[in-house]
Structures are given as structure tokens and as C-alpha cells.
């Protein structure tokens, strides 16, 4: 029993390439590799929830059939203690070369575009040196986050956001398997909120269903409201009214009590700021401040300090 079967996303993750939807081109090429019993190093690129991990895991499953154990490893590039861990793992792989069947092991490297340039250079050498025993599947949100020499050594597969039709199809499949009743408008709302992210669609559906066996428009809207916190809008409004101190308090609550990431707060703020009511000149100033904050946070600066400047920009009268 694992946590995975409690969450629909995991429970209904396609296990084989045949079950994967809306990725015909990718799937047919991957199937060809399986038939040949050989795969190249690969780079899967696309936003979250577009099937990168699913495709990689399904490929591993099809390739090794029932004996996947010990044949592949999934690592988070930004998580493990850097490139040295990867080197050690690959060395271990090399020592225990499988005697029968597919003669190499697979290392799935999530968030590869978060690796530093130096680490990527080192990774490239590891890839070359152990090419006979290891294949890499690099997962990334942005292709240009991966250095050229690695890109050129990989077969690149693109994972664009799923079409609304496919999100719908995948979603309904899950709802039916779970025996959950749905209304058309509820499903429409999920598809809209998911924006091509399958994982998000299923997560919203499960949260809205909760313990009940149905999803309604009302329950969906409630969940969507929590995923896009109202509090961010309230924070912006407080700042706009000139109450910087109150807005800043809310910011630290969002960051520290609710545990929202700075990136999520900044993204939601950006959306809100575009539609919030204010003088256009002021909007320009505020949005610029937001961009600056965003950049600095990603460079390691402090989220609260940086986002505070955006709140201060909001609290300042635009006449000046």
C-alpha cells in the first residue's frame, strides 16, 4: 500500500505507452525504440503536467517488461547532492551490468534545467563515458535551460500543453473509473482551469469530489479559488488602498504559514495586476517592480524583501 494509490493522478497514471493519450508522435517513436530494444539519450521538454514523467516511466515499463527493479532510477537533478551523486549512481550502474535482456539501465533526471552550467558539463562527460551501460532521460521545462552539447547528444521530444479535448477525455476516464458523477459545466470549468496540465485537472477533480462521489460546478469553483488564493488579490487591494503594513503582513503569512512558493505568489500577482483597477502609468511601474522582484528571487534573493517592493509600488500614489 503506498500513498500513490490515494491520489488519482498517481493511481491512473498510464502504465504503458499504449495508455498514453494525445502524444501520438512521441509515443510511436518511443515504441519503435522499445521494438529495437535500444534507446538513445533523450530530452523531454514541456511545461508541468504534459506527460514527460509518464512517458518516461511507461517507456521503462515497456522496455524491461516485468523486471524493471534495479534497472532504472528516477532522480531530481536539483535535489540530490549535485552531480557527484549522479556520478556515483552511474558508476554503480556500470558495476552491475545486467546479464540478460536490455544491456543498459535508465536514469530519469527530473528538473534537469535547474542544474548549473558546470554541473551540466560534468553530466555530459558522464553521459559519454558510461554510454554503454546507461541511458539518460532528461526532463526539463525549458529546452534552452539545457546546454547545447547535451541537447545535441539527445533525441529531443516536445511535450506541449494537452489540448482541451484530451484533457477532457483523460479526466472523464478517471472520473468513470472512480465512479464519480459529474456535470458538464463542472468538467468544462476543470478543463478551463487546467490550461493543458493533465495533473492539475485530475487534482482539481479529486479535491472537489473529496469524500463524495460527485463533482459539481460549485465544488470545482471552490477548489480553483483555493489553488489561486483569493488572499493574493486581497493583498494587492490592501496595498492599493495604501495600507502597506497590512499587505506585507499578508505576504509573510502566505510565504511562511501557508508555505506558498515565491514563484507561485509572483505568478498569481502578475495575473491579478493585469486586471486590477489602477492608473496605467502606475501599472507600468508596478509590473516593472514585479519583474525585477521575480528576477532577483530566482537569483536567490529574499522573497519577502523583493515582493515587498512591489507592494510599496502599489501603495505609492501614481501622481508622483
Amino acid at each position, binding site marked *: 500500500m503506498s*500513498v500513490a494509490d490515494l491520489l488519482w493522478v*498517481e493511481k491512473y497514471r498510464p502504465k504503458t505507452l499504449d495508455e498514453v493519450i494525445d502524444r501520438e508522435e512521441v509515443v510511436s517513436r518511443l515504441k519503435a525504440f522499445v521494438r529495437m530494444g535500444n534507446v538513445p539519450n533523450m530530452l523531454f521538454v514541456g511545461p508541468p503536467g504534459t506527460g514527460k514523467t509518464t512517458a518516461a516511466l511507461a517507456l521503462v515499463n515497456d522496455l524491461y517488461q516485468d523486471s524493471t527493479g534495479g534497472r532504472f532510477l528516477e532522480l531530481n537533478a536539483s535535489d540530490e547532492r549535485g552531480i557527484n551523486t549522479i556520478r556515483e549512481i552511474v558508476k554503480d550502474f556500470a558495476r552491475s551490468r545486467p546479464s540478460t535482456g536490455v544491456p543498459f539501465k535508465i536514469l530519469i533526471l527530473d528538473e534537469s534545467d535547474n542544474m548549473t552550467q558546470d554541473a551540466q558539463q560534468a553530466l555530459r562527460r558522464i553521459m559519454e563515458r558510461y554510454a554503454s551501460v546507461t541511458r539518460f532521460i532528461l526532463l526539463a521545462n525549458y529546452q534552452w535551460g539545457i546546454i547545447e552539447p547535451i541537447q545535441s547528444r539527445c533525441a529531443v521530444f516536445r511535450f506541449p500543453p494537452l489540448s482541451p479535448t484530451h484533457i477532457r477525455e483523460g479526466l472523464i476516464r478517471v472520473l468513470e473509473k472512480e465512479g464519480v458523477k459529474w456535470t458538464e459545466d463542472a468538467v468544462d470549468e476543470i478543463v478551463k482551469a487546467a490550461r493543458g496540465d493533465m495533473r492539475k485537472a485530475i487534482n482539481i477533480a479529486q*479535491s472537489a469530489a473529496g469524500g463524495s462521489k460527485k463533482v459539481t460546478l460549485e465544488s470545482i469553483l471552490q477548489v480553483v479559488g483555493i489553488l489561486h488564493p483569493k488572499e493574493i488579490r486581497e493583498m494587492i487591494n490592501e496595498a492599493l488602498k495604501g495600507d502597506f503594513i497590512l499587505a506585507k503582513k499578508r505576504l509573510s503569512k502566505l510565504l511562511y504559514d501557508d508555505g506558498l512558493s515565491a514563484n507561485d505568489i509572483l505568478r498569481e500577482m502578475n495575473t491579478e495586476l493585469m486586471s486590477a483597477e489602477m492608473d496605467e502609468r502606475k501599472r507600468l511601474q508596478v509590473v516593472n*517592480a514585479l519583474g525585477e*522582484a521575480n528576477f532577483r528571487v530566482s537569483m536567490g*534573493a529574499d522573497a519577502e524583501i523583493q515582493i515587498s*517592493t512591489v507592494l510599496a509600488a502599489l*501603495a505609492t500614489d501614481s501622481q508622483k
Partner: protein
Amino acid sequence: MSSSKLSWVEKHKPATLDEIVGNDAAKKDFIDWLQKWDERGKAAMLHGPPGVGKTILVEVAASTLGFRLIETNASETRKAEYLENVIKPAAFNRSLFSSRMMIFFDEVDGISGDESGTVNFLLELIGSSRVPIVMAANDPWSPQLYKIRDKVYKIPMHRIRLPSIVKRLRDICRAENVRCRQEVLALIAERSEGDMRAAIEDLELLYSSHEDVKVEDAEKLLSYRNVEKNIFETLRMVAYATTLERASLALSSSEEKPENMLEWVFENIPQISSKQGLFQALRHVAEADMLFRQISKNSIWRLLPSFYNRLSSAFLTIPQKGRVNFAFPNRIRERFKRIQRERNIRELESFFMKELHVDRASFRRDVIPILRLLSKENDFRTSLLARLNDPRLKELYSSIIFGEESRRRPA
């Protein structure tokens, strides 16, 4: 932003010479000098450690003897146009005014070395003023004052004796209608090292809630303050500085760690800034923050002066500051808790990242809120807990998913 409530130091300021505690010889000497002005030179300098009553003696003496006091602090002293337009007429055109004048330069040792203009102005004044010139300094031997110190009548002032401080504190307690323990007053006095202002500030800190304080608690509260004392002094200097050089110098010579200094400035800028100035000021803080991350990450400590310049700029862009009450940064107090919490989230994250094949960002963005929603259902919660076979994981799950959920929606 000035606080609407007067601090105890302000509120219980002595109004007569008798009410000024300690330094009887200096008091007498100064009054004597004033009454026979010009016999022993045109200028006097009261010098001694902080908080012994230099400023208050000048103020009370002026009002007692019927002088109109033209008072300037360190930052005004350095403004040429102020000196030219306010001080000069006062010093040389006595006849325009009906009452007698006295010109007072507070904190003269705050003039920096290269401000020779100011020093020359003071020298000119000492030579030919028609009214008494009084200066106050902590350290008359500081190099900036070498041209001046031999031309003034120096009156030393000393630390206040502890029993006198205790007595004064008790009087204030009575006036404020708070009950205080003798041991606590003795503790405050001892820690003050003869600095009356510091003693009264400590008293206010302990008793502003008007509740009884035990001596153990007082010790704890005040030892906290001990570390802070330096930084309050530093921030005060920065807040009143008018040049970047002075402000940066004050910041960089503090013993406080740069990252803590950043916290102090970040916490206090919104308190002292107007709404209009806030954006500009915070931009400097944000820039300093960015700079510091780069400095510490890449060990380019030679850029540290730029960091202090940025922090100083944050203060300097704020136009005129009233009385400033600096606050201890919440973020320093909470830092440990936040690091702990971040560590907890990371630990739970690593577990779920493996189980659910999600990356870090998705875990925070999608999984945590969904777990929070689903965990409201008893069935889900029970099943999930049953699957977390490690007690540590159970604990993390409860604290991150529920602990915050309950705080997430206050009534």
C-alpha cells in the same frame, strides 16, 4: 513618522536645574560660565559619555537664565545654508532680537573629517560671536575637533551614580503609576553604566505594559536588549546622517552581521518612511538584499561597502525623519522557526516526490493544497496516515498539512 505617544525619556525630562540628576559641579560651572559670558571665552563645550544629561543641561540652563536657544543637531550643523541663514544672523545681529540668544551645537564630534567648511564656520563663530556658543560632544579628543577643542571652555560631565539613577527611576515609576521591584531598578541602573537615558529606556521597555516584572524576566529581557543597544545607536546615526559617507560608515563600523543589518533596515524602513518615499527606499533595500546574496555566494566581500551604501541610501531617500522608534526585526526572531519549517517541508517533499513522481515546484503548488483539501475528510486522512509507516513522516504530515490549515483560515 513620529509616534503619538511620548517616550518616557521625553515625558519625564527635567524642567528645572534641580531636577537634573548628578554632575553638580558641571552644572554649577556651566551656569557660572554663562552668567559671566565672554570672561572665559565665547564658547563652551560640555563633554562626557552618552546619557549623562549634556543636552538637557543646556536646554534647562537656557530657559532658567532666559536665553533663547538656537539648537542644531549633527545633521543640521552640516548644512551650509542653515549655518549661513539661521546661525550667522543669530550670532552676529543680536540687536534684531529682543531676548538674549544662545547657540547650541549638539553632537559636534559627529562632524566628519573632511567637512572643513563646518569646522571653519565654527572657528569663525568662536572668535567673534556676540552670543554664547555651546557645544556638546562625547569625545572632545576626536580628531575632527582638534582645531576647536583648545578654543573652547571645556566642562567635563560624568556617568551618573547608580543610587541617583535608582532614585530617578523610582520617581518615574510613581509618576507612571507602575509598581516596580527594588531589585529590578537596581538591575537596570547597574546595566546602564551611568547612562540615565538608557536606564529610562530600559525602564519603559520593562514596564510599558504596566505589569509587574520579576527580576529574572527583567534579566532576560534586558540581555536581549544589550546586543541591540549598539545597533539602535547605529540606526539612529544612520537615520540622522545627511551624507552617504556618514551613514555607510556608521553601518559598516557596527558589530552587527551584515545580514542582520539588512533585516533591521528592512523591518524599520516602513515605520519611518512616508507612503510616497517607501517605494524608493525599499528598492534600495531590495537591491542591497540582492547584492548581499551575490557577495556571500561568490565571496566577493570587497563589494560589502556597496551593500552598506545601498542600505544607507534607503534611509537617505526618506526626507525628514521625526523621532524614530526602531523595532527589533520580526524576521530575526522568526528565522529559526522558518528554517525549521522549510526543513520540514523539504523532508516531506522528498518523500512525496519519490512516491508521486512530482518535482519540487509541483509539490508545493499542486500537491500541498490538494492534500490540505482532501485531508479534511476523515477517511482520506486515516488512509493516508496508515500509509505513512514512519512516525516522523506522520508528524511532518500533521504539522504541515493541518498545522497550517488551522491557521490558514482564521474566523
